[in-house]
């Protein structure tokens, strides 16, 4: 197992290099000037001062080499637009918010989604099943920004006195509820449907019938034998979804005015803040790589066959 993890970690290096290369090339292919933020043009001499200061007048390969060196020495460089702030500062100050938001959304999705799916499977084709699946389908179909707007409208504004949720921000625990629900609803619905499907399939398996015939308690059959095998596809999906929740929450961060990195990411792309875009892309790709690694490790725990095949 250790050898497997080390090997996987080693392989992240070339992946990160490729990510840096493509981001570097793509960012410079699109038009735009990081120093021009308004309709006011930047005078030529001032533009030169700025390019000199940020090393943008070096040949591209020098800039690229400097950047790669920076990444591997954990120095992601200064922001070109937010003067006096380094990408390291932005990651340090704002990544925890995104991580927390993604984590809470994931928690909500798993804690509600899996039991809901189980319930539906155990009571397949009942009223409860239809209701749960109806809401899951709706939850899956509505985009998060609409969910967010509706949640704010009803729970912070219309019934704000009852629920006490603020419309925006990321300070008190109340302020964290609506964004986490808005972000987690889609994955929750997805997990519920996935769990229901695989659970139904598992319950048809011979070994379940055998377990029943042997007189095992139903609760034990479901909790130990059925659930464990039903969770494998959920775990497969959970890795990328966790990565997506942590990295792809910019719409929710924007709507709820949460100071996470997603907000910076979007502003940086539209403002052509090259170093911030690069730094955050590298960070986010590392998260996705790590999330996938965790999934592979969990596989091994859930299904010993895959573990043996790898070591």
């Amino acid at each position, binding site marked *: 197992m250790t050898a497997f993890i080390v090997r996987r970690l080693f392989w992240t290096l070339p992946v990160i290099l490729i990510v840096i290369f493509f981001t570097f090339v793509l960012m410079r292919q699109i038009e735009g000037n990081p120093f021009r933020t308004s309709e006011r043009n930047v005078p030529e001499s001032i533009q*030169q001062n700025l390019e000199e200061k940020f090393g943008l007048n070096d040949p591209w390969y020098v800039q690229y080499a400097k950047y790669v060196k920076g990444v591997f020495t954990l120095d992601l460089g200064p922001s070109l637009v937010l003067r006096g702030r380094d990408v390291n500062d932005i990651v340090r100050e704002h990544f925890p918010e995104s991580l927390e938001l993604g984590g809470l959304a994931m928690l909500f999705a798993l804690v509600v989604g899996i039991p809901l799916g189980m319930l539906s499977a155990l009571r397949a084709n009942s009223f409860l099943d239809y209701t749960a699946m109806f809401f899951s389908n709706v939850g899956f179909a509505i985009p998060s920004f609409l969910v967010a707007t509706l949640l704010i409208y009803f729970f*912070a504004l219309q019934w704000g006195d009852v629920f006490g949720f603020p*419309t925006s921000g990321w300070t008190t625990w109340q302020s964290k509820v609506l964004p986490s629900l808005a972000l987690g609803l889609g994955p929750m619905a997805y997990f519920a449907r996935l769990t229901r499907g695989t659970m139904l399939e598992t319950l048809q398996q011979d070994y379940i019938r055998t377990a029943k015939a042997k007189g095992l308690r139903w609760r034990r059959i479901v909790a130990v034998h059925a659930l464990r095998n039903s969770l494998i596809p959920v775990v497969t999906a959970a890795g990328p979804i966790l990565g997506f929740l942590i990295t792809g929450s910019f719409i929710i961060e924007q709507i709820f005015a949460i100071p996470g990195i997603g907000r910076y990411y979007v502003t940086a792309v539209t403002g052509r803040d090259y170093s911030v875009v690069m730094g955050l892309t590298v960070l986010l790709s590392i998260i996705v790589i790590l999330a996938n690694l965790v999934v592979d490790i969990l596989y091994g725990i859930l299904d010993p066959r895959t573990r043996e095949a790898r070591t």
Partner: protein
Amino acid sequence: MRQKRRKQFTLLGLATILALLVTACAGGGDDGQQTAADGIITINWSSEPPSLDPGLATDTTSSNVLNNIMDPLVKLEGENLAPTPALAESWDVLDGGKTVVFHLRSDGRWTNGDPVTAEDFEYSWKRTLSPELAADYAYQFSSIVGADDYNGCEKNCDAMRDKVGVEAVDDRTLRVTLANPTPWFLQQMAHHSFLAVHQPTVERFGEKWTEAANIVTNGPFQLDAWEHNSRIDLVKWDEWRNAADVSLERVNGRMISEGTTAVQAFEAGEVDETGAIGGLPPEEMPRLKELPEYEQTPSLATYYYGVNVENVPDVNQRRAMALAIDRQSIIDNIAQADQLPASGFTPSGMPGFDTINPVSEFLPAAGDIVRAKELMEQVESPVTDITLVINDAPGHREIAVAVQDMWSELGIDAKIEQQEWAQFLEALGPPPTKTTDVYRNGWVGDFVDAYNFLELWTCDSGNNNSNYCNEEYDALLQQAISVPDDAERYETYAQMEELLFGPEGDMPILPIYFYTNVSLQRESIKETFNLNLLDQFDLTKVVEGDDSGDEDA
């Protein structure tokens, strides 16, 4: 048996969901809600300021924060935004306007106790000009002798630094030498670029000197907290020279950039003001305008369509295009914030406006489609396929579609090309890209003189995106700035406007409207929370009154 077990599972599941809901619903929010007149208000800064360094700041948020935490030499007061003494108690204009000597008050203090001196200003201005700082707004200092040379220097920079025309004669006397008489120089002093910074703090903390823990300021409020992309809180500084006149104790500030969320935060009582920076969402305007908290003030800014005159060379076609636009209808049906229809470029509110930009009979607010068609018929080779470039901010597309429809009556087939901001700026140039025939744009004043607007359409202006060049126009501008007499200068500006937008005008741009600033302000502060023409608010003047009954909102 099995049924029973299933029930247990069902109950377990339901209990989990219920537990989650109950936890989620418990408790009451108290996030920044202030209703009593306790001298504490919460406003919406809208977005993270890229910098709070006066030398580096370029946006409205930074400008408003800085104007309230720093003390300028000169403040702009009254409807005409006349320069009035602030940290400078008086000034002398000498040498026919080429030298200005400021006399500083003796009681200016930095928050660490140091006195504010003329040396602070000399240091700060030269710092902003230094090529190492690479300040975007260094051009603000261009009228000062030697400023551009130092800013653009490659060698002998120290010598050039010494030649810049700003000198602290003694602790309280600052002498500024200008290359030419600059009639608006005093107004310009109120711009945040000309604020002083505290040298020991800047040198000690480097680029991090503006963080709340490090910053040393000299204005009515102190920077209490700056949580990036989240909040900027100001607290009254009791030792400021006029602290006795400041009513507010604390101004908390959120950064909610999403317009709809900001309005909802206002309606939920979380913020007492939103929109002054960042505006209100256009799609909600009809509803918001009816609220008692709605406030609207004129801005020194013009919304216009620029024409790439190389692509649309016939002046009659440009005149026809201007006349075909029903600007009043655009204001009433799309923009909806009672903007004023523009028949020229210098915006309403500018000193001398009535002379410079009088009511135009040629360009009526509702347009003149009959005359437009007549003019279009005189065009020998009309350009009927027009690419209209706009950026993707809310509201622009709707106006473009309306204009597209209006121009179709002239036989013009306009194609709307919507671009994101950075890409849009590249299309503007100058010069504009070859495929750009017409572009949407706005110009917001930096200082209060029509020069700030009319200079745009000179041949060499760095912001002339229309390829327009008329030497007669340029000569008039030179003539205007050589006369110190205001009335005479306004007359010359009026001739320039006529040259662009009169019946015989060249029409390189098609004016649409003069902006208004729209915001929501809690009724308790609405009387005293005032924005000037430059969209700046002075928190020292805000006094909380009675909140006339929207506490349930």
